[in-house]
């Protein structure tokens, strides 16, 4: 299972115009100037995977995840969808594609969808965990955190090994 498509609308620096990023199974590189929105794409992925901590999405409060800019003012919601290629059937869902969607309203409430139908966060997390996909997995290394991984203390590293045992 890999990510085929990321759709972002109104999430942090992305505005009201829907942005679609198509991805292949190989090496995709995202580049561009400082402050452009590269790490926001990484935040968007974690958000769609069910991340609950605003801090780990680099925001003070959840409401700061909704787009605000001089050009568009403050939007009323943020929405991110992730479409997985599921031809290897590692996700226990019918079909070759599985799409998870999360929508955040300015009330701070999140709604989740699975292939377009409303679902609970737990349903989504359970399905994703079948392929060991989680918002805080070690396979997602956020900016500035790589050096800290080599500085992990010996108890933390033990827990990491226990997790996958």
């Amino acid at each position: 299972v890999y990510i085929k498509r990321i759709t972002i609308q109104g999430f942090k620096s992305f505005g009201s115009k829907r942005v679609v990023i198509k991805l292949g199974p190989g090496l995709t590189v995202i580049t561009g100037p400082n402050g452009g929105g590269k790490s926001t794409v990484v935040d968007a992925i974690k958000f769609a995977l069910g991340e609950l901590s605003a801090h780990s999405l680099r925001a003070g409060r959840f409401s700061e995840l909704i787009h605000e800019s001089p050009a568009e003012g403050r939007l009323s919601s943020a929405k991110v969808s992730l479409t997985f290629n599921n031809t290897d059937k590692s996700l226990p869902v019918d079909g070759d594609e599985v799409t998870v969607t999360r929508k955040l309203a300015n009330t701070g409430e999140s709604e989740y969808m699975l292939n377009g139908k409303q679902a609970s966060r737990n349903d989504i997390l359970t399905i994703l965990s079948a392929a060991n996909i989680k918002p805080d997995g070690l396979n997602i290394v956020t900016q500035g955190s790589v050096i800290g991984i080599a500085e992990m203390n010996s108890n933390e590293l033990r827990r990491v090994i226990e997790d996958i045992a």
Partner: protein
Amino acid sequence: ELNTFMKTLEKVSENFRFFFHQITGGEAWLRLEKPDEPLKSGVEMIVKFIGKTARSSSAVSGGEKSVAATALILALQGLTPAEFYIFDEIDAHLDINYTARLVELLKEMSKHRQIIVVSLKDVIAERADMLYGVYMRNGVSSIVKTSLEEVETLVG
């Protein structure tokens, strides 16, 4: 219970050694801090760069830590079905040599798993199967599929 843990530790250590050697030519392994208390003991990451003494990964340089951490992450994932990696500027503290070796390895790995890398460096961008440029106008981000020449104009 203990057996599964020890087997997993062994396997991750082997993978860690393999990936670390791929990038640096040196040796690396995991070991129990207190071998006589396997049920409770912490686990240490030991790295031995060519020509240097073996040390804990927390005592080496910034670039060396980046390399050790990357080797560990690749080593862990080998044991789980998670099929994708996302690395956001893991090359920030790497010199030209290690950046080139890193991208070599990631390119190789990308034959088996999806790898998404955020980087400011051309030497990484030029190896991409797909390259995206992200930039901002009036405080709103947009993204464009691009080639390396085009990126030069984006970043200025």
